[in-house]
């Protein structure tokens, strides 16, 4: 897939409420354009994330098709999955992150796309997947959109497909926080609420773990990270 094709995907303007949503989302993406490699410097030792990808690797057959939703720099997850022999598609809305991911993980395919546009029959339907990983990416959405995206992930998966999700535990809805010298908006649920939202979207949670994680940067406080390993029901 050529770079030029992908970069052209968001050139057309949109109006109305949808247009506002896009602008807002683009702002989030621009923060990550600015952050670039510093993201991995501030969040090293992704123990929980590595373990969750290991769960996918141990559960999937060779050559399985995996979607990395909000792939960032492609590290560590996309690389881990490529090294395990899977066909990996990474998606991120940040242009810079997609550039870095292509450089760091040449074995995967990366697309600059909005999560919300990936649904079956939507503008950028990427086909069905055996597994989806969404590590700390759905927290960039307003709370109202999260159940919708979870349902979409459900529909992107083959029956019995796997879903590895991680979020930061918080009870906030699209709350602006300083983040690596930028401002981003984040949403979160407390653990039990998150589980409920995920189950209602048609998943069975097979494993739940949490970690206290202290980013190596002064403007991001320590966080409680929740990892849910899920299977598509129905």
């Amino acid at each position, binding site marked *: 897939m050529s770079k030029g094709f992908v970069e052209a995907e968001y050139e057309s303007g949109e109006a109305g409420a949808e247009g506002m949503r896009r602008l807002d989302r683009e702002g989030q993406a621009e923060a990550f354009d600015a952050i670039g490699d510093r993201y991995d410097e501030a969040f090293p030792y992704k123990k929980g994330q590595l373990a969750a990808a290991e769960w996918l690797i141990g559960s999937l057959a060779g050559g399985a098709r995996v979607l990395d939703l909000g792939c960032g720099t492609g590290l560590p997850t996309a690389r881990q999955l490529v090294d395990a022999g899977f066909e990996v598609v990474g998606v991120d809305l940040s242009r810079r992150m997609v550039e870095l991911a292509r450089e760091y993980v040449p074995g995967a395919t990366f697309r600059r796309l909005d999560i919300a546009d990936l649904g079956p029959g939507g503008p950028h339907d990427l086909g069905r997947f055996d597994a989806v990983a969404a590590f700390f990416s759905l927290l960039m959405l307003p709370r109202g959109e999260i159940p919708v995206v979870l349902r979409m992930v459900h529909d992107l998966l083959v029956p019995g497909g796997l879903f590895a999700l991680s979020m930061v535990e918080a009870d906030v809805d699209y*709350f602006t926080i300083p983040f690596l010298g930028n401002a981003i908006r984040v949403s979160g649920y407390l653990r039990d609420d998150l589980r409920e939202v995920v189950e209602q979207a048609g998943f069975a949670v097979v494993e739940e773990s949490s970690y206290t994680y202290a980013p*190596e940067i002064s403007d991001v406080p320590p966080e409680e990270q929740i990892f849910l390993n899920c299977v598509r029901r129905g």
Partner: protein
Amino acid sequence: MEPHPRADTNTAPPAAGAPAERGRGQPKRAPEAQSDRLRFLDLAARRIARGVEPDETLRGLYEAAVPAFADAVLVHLREPPAAREGQSDEPLVLRLHSFAQGPEGVVSAASAGGAGPVRPTVSGAFAELLLGRRPVFGEVPEIEAVVSELLEPVAGVSETGAPGRRLIIAPLYGRRHLLGAVVLLRAGGRSVFEADDLLVAAQLATYTGLGVEASVPSGREASAADALQLRMLPSSLPETTGVRLASRYLPAAETSQGGGDWYDAIPLPGNRVALVVGDVMGHSMTSAAMMGQLRTTVQTLARLDLPPEEVLYHLDEQAQRLGSEHMATCLYAIYDPISQRLLVADAGHPPPVLLHPDGSGEVLQVPPGAPIGVGGVPFETWELPAPTGGTLLLYTDGLVESRNRDVWTGMELLRGRLEAVAARVAPPPLDMLCDAVLTLLDPDALDDDVALLAARFDGFAPLNVAYWFLSPQPQTAGRARQLTRRALHRWGLGSMLDATELMVSEVVTNAVRYASRPIALRLLRTDVLRCEVGDDSPQVPRMRRAQAGDEGGRGLFLVDQLALRWGATMLSTGKVVWFEQEIPEEYRQHCQEGADAA
């Protein structure tokens, strides 16, 4: 408990002054001679510094020096003790205080009463020599007249004939005045002192002099400005988890006026700590007073939890309001033991030095902004890693700059000294490090006062913290209770559940009432369990008596009753209400390992 340095249990004599059995045919100077001297000096400094009264200080000197460095050591103190040089033509009178000798270093005090066995009156060349501050060998002609008198108590050690290079006489100085003399003697069978041993003797005498003087009531001789200065420095440093601190302050030797150096350490929310060092230019009553005002201002700004560049900006503004005749330099840093990061902003101050855990020293490249008092200049904050086990040293220019040494040379010497100490003891105890650093000072050129603040980064493991953001809603207090319960169970602190839940609930309820943005709930576990609730309302809650029928208002009374300590601090972004409970001994650090799989 810090590990003791090797040398503590087994005093290694400096190689160059080693006993004669080393063999006369060997090279005069083993390659390790210098580092052995340093090791000896560090041990000596700590022994001498232990004393809180003159006798103890001197006992420290004897223990350190006999027989490791000399076979006999005598201390003669001046009589009367407080005379000033240059103001009197009276001859110097020395009186033997005590001495130590022999392989066991037996200490003898001079007999009590005015008529001691040795009471040399020194004048002329020898007095000049003492006032010159430098130690000399026994071979200089000025000593001949007094040497037998000085050595009389240890006549058995000193053999017939001129002691020559087996004798060193080191003037004993306090911060300003000659206090007496230290006499060091080697027995005939031992190799003579070398040139470098004069430096060792100078350092021994410096430690001893400062120790003796510090332990003598000094009100009468310290100037008012000195007193003001000392009173305005922190009487003690805060004890926070995640960082250990030590400090030193030395007034200038020559000026009788106080300087404007200060240092400070201020605890901040989230177990962070602000580290401050500053220097008001000039030496006068007003610079000491100015220092007091700036220090107070920095403290106030720090407690608002402003970022470093804003602390300096507002400090600059305040300095201009106080009057522009005084400029100051200031370095403001925040250490966060959880993220293990350091934020630094600098207003014209010399850069801090970081001693890395691997023993390498680094002068931190923090671009200096304009000094405080210039006005209208923005400052910048720099963020750096703060590795656990590392030591940050903040200091004033008096440490690195003198009339004999430029500031850059001084900083390199400082870096080298830190590395030298770390090479011997890893990690070096903070007090040892501070004392070793002070030996950089040339007692002859102590033109400026010196402030020193050392911070050892201990870090704070993430598994001992729990942080959440919670939107303020009616059910938030209940959710905070639930999260607290979970964290306490994870830490094996179930026995503290009831009281903690109750207090968290009260404080969160109060925060929810005023907050418009999500509140922060933080739990931190050390020997105490600390809970912090932050919100964006600056209104600090006050404890008030609840009236009959009041729904709220009882919360802080409960906290006051149940908590070991509590407080409420206004911040630039709102406020933090915190409380602490002691963790019963048997539950401390109950679970140390890994993540908790639910």
